[in-house]
């Protein structure tokens, strides 16, 4: 039997790696992919905890990740469209070059 605590620890580590990727990397694609990784980690946490309930309550924990996957699809769609727009305006994928608000 798989230990739920181990699943939750893996989910926490994956979430923190995702946040680290989104914060530290400069290429804008890595920022997007870090957010995707963090979303995946929360899905894993939901499914792990759904095993600790019985009956139909355990199914609710498996339905929430379905919606979260759909929202992630919408987010990736709009996010990539914005990346294309930014790249056309600046000819760069470096997040350091998107600082026109600072100047």
């Amino acid at each position: 039997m798989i230990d739920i605590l181990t699943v939750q620890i893996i989910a926490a580590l994956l979430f923190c790696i995702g946040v680290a990727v989104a914060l530290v990397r400069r290429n804008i694609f890595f920022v997007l992919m870090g957010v995707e990784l963090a979303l995946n980690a929360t899905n894993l946490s939901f499914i792990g905890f759904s095993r600790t309930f019985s009956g139909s309550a355990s199914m609710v924990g498996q339905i929430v990740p379905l919606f979260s996957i759909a929202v992630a699809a919408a987010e990736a769609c709009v996010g990539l469209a914005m990346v294309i727009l930014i790249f056309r305006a600046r000819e760069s994928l470096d997040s350091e070059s998107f600082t026109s608000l600072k100047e």
Partner: protein
Amino acid sequence: MIAQIYFSVFATLALACALYLLVARHPLYGALSLIGTMLSLAGIYSLLSAPFLGVVQVLTYAGAIMMLVVFVIMVLNSSHDHVVPRFDSRGFILLLVPAVLSACLLYVLHTTHPLVDAGAIQGSAEAVSIQLFNTSQQGSGAWILFEFIGLLLLAAMVSAVVLAKKHLDKKDCV
């Protein structure tokens, strides 16, 4: 026992691919390692008695979303990708945030003892759809959310098309 072995293999693969995403040089390699993470997470979902979600993960995440990401990376393949330094110079201070976050999460998890309930349902496609489309008063009401997700995806598709299309001159439009 064999489930335990599969679980450790999938968990190690997921963590290793996620760590490679942190240090990868080219976004394409990062995207491929992220696909590896998502596929091993799909395996873990199946082991946690959610096989339907595992299939949805492979179809939607590893299939559709990552296909879109890889496609856009290839379309926007800028030649000076390798010249740009990988890490933000001041960003290493920001690494404290996930470090403190993971320390807090691990401490909280260490104090709890979640146990597997024997009455948990195997999440097959049938069981998930019975729960999802239960329109009776006693149901969870998730079918309303399902309708709104359809609206959200349509709005996202329309906005992506409007944002990313090239602005053509009026006379060029046919």
